């Protein structure tokens, strides 16, 4: 398995507070890594450093052979990123918004149109593609954000809470999508929903207080607790943090 994403001693401090504390791990092609952890555990901060939004205090991330500290633009071009809350420009329509992102990703003319059509279909936002994003429901906004991250068919996808705020049907759509793409991509998702890890992840990592507390497949994690319950493992691992 080739390592596409390599996190090396990533640390972030804000003032005297250490939010991410010496986190290292590798993710290869075909893996879907679920980042689990209580709120404020450092999941989002870790992701923000991987995609080059925040500068690490120390350590670095290597994405597709590019070191984010030295070649941030190459990393940004290689990854697809869905920030927490799926921010998008409210006055634009999904089509205009995707058009802008596709342009920045270097696509023009017929290719731009076909790429937009592809992600609109994948995320099933056809019906709302021509109305301003501010008028969309939370679920559609989230899917517009997801569509944006898929435009350039990236090898590495970093999705911060991709199913937050979706209803059960929409969750299913997004999970199926992630699972399908997980076959040939390297995907990292953050979530605090444990059943999600079971549903889509091939590997789960529990983070608390900026440290990696557990790193195993969902099945192995379950085996650690006597009852085979992920909730229990989660509580046990994060209790002392």
């Amino acid at each position, binding site marked *: 398995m080739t390592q596409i994403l390599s996190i090396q001693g990533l640390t972030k401090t*804000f003032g005297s507070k250490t939010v991410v504390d010496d986190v290292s791990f590798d993710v290869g092609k075909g893996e879907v890594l679920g980042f689990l952890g209580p709120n404020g555990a450092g999941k989002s901060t870790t992701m*923000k450093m991987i*995609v*080059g*939004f*925040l500068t690490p205090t120390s350590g670095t991330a290597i994405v597709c052979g590019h070191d984010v500290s030295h070649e941030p*633009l*190459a990393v*940004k*071009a290689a*990854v697809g*990123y869905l*920030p*927490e*809350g799926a*921010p*998008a*420009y*409210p*006055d*634009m329509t999904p089509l*205009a918004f995707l058009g*802008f*992102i596709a*342009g*920045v*990703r270097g696509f023009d003319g017929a290719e731009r149109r076909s790429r937009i059509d592809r992600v609109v279909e994948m995320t099933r936002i056809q019906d709302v593609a021509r109305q301003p994003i501010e008028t969309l429901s939370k679920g559609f906004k989230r899917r517009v*954000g997801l569509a*944006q991250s898929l435009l350039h068919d990236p090898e590495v996808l970093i999705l911060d809470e991709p199913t937050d705020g979706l209803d059960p049907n929409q969750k299913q759509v997004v999970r199926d999508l992630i699972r399908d793409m997980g076959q040939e991509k390297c995907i990292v998702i953050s979530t605090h929903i444990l059943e999600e890890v079971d549903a889509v992840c091939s590997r789960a990592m529990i983070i608390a207080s900026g440290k990696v507390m557990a790193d195993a497949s969902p099945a192995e994690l379950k085996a650690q607790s006597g009852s085979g319950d992920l909730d229990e493992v989660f509580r046990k691992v994060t209790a002392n943090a």
Partner: protein
Amino acid sequence: MRNVSLVFRREFAAYFATPLAYIFIVIFLALAGILTFRLGGFLGREQADLVPFFEFHPWLYLFLVPALSMRLWAEERRLGTIELFLTLPISMTEAVVGKYLAAWAFTATAVALTFPMWLTVNYLGNPDNGVILASYVGSLLMAGAYLSIGSMISAMTKNQVIAFVVTTSACFILTLAGSPTVLEFFSNWAPSNVVEAIGNFGFLPHFQSIQRGVIDLRDLIFFGSVIIVALIANAIIVDWRKAF
């Protein structure tokens, strides 16, 4: 250049996505007209020039330009789109310049729509059109300097109202730095070279010297360096404050 143009087009269109663009243009044109004809006594002077028109521009810009610059970065920060924007493969320079140029081009559009003033004065008499052209250039440079300061201040906050008020105040001080009131205040006690330095820092003398019809290299360098320094500071502030 490609990214600058993409950012530029998105930002420029964003002005027109809300009523802001239309309100701005209507108010700008109405105020420019009222000030020129009423306060400036454009017709009563019986002179074929646009001096009463241009002399009010700095004061119009003082509160209209911050209304354009306040959203540039503050809105991205409030909406959280800054995280998306800055994780696209766009360099900081491209992002800052693209946004800035969009605001400047929008201002230029509003200024260009004052062309009936130019037609009027040409109909009524034989003005020196070279002076008028120079005045338009000076006016746009002045607006550009205000916008660069506004864009920099917009990067410091999530709150557009704060960005507006602080920008207006900063531009007010910079505009008046060369005025007799301010200079007299300093000349009572400060050494003459300090007074001169303060005088040189004011926007108004540079604007007025271009108004006379001479585009002096020193005035171009002055406004150019204000814009460049403000935009460099803008990029540094965005980078430094983006996480907050």
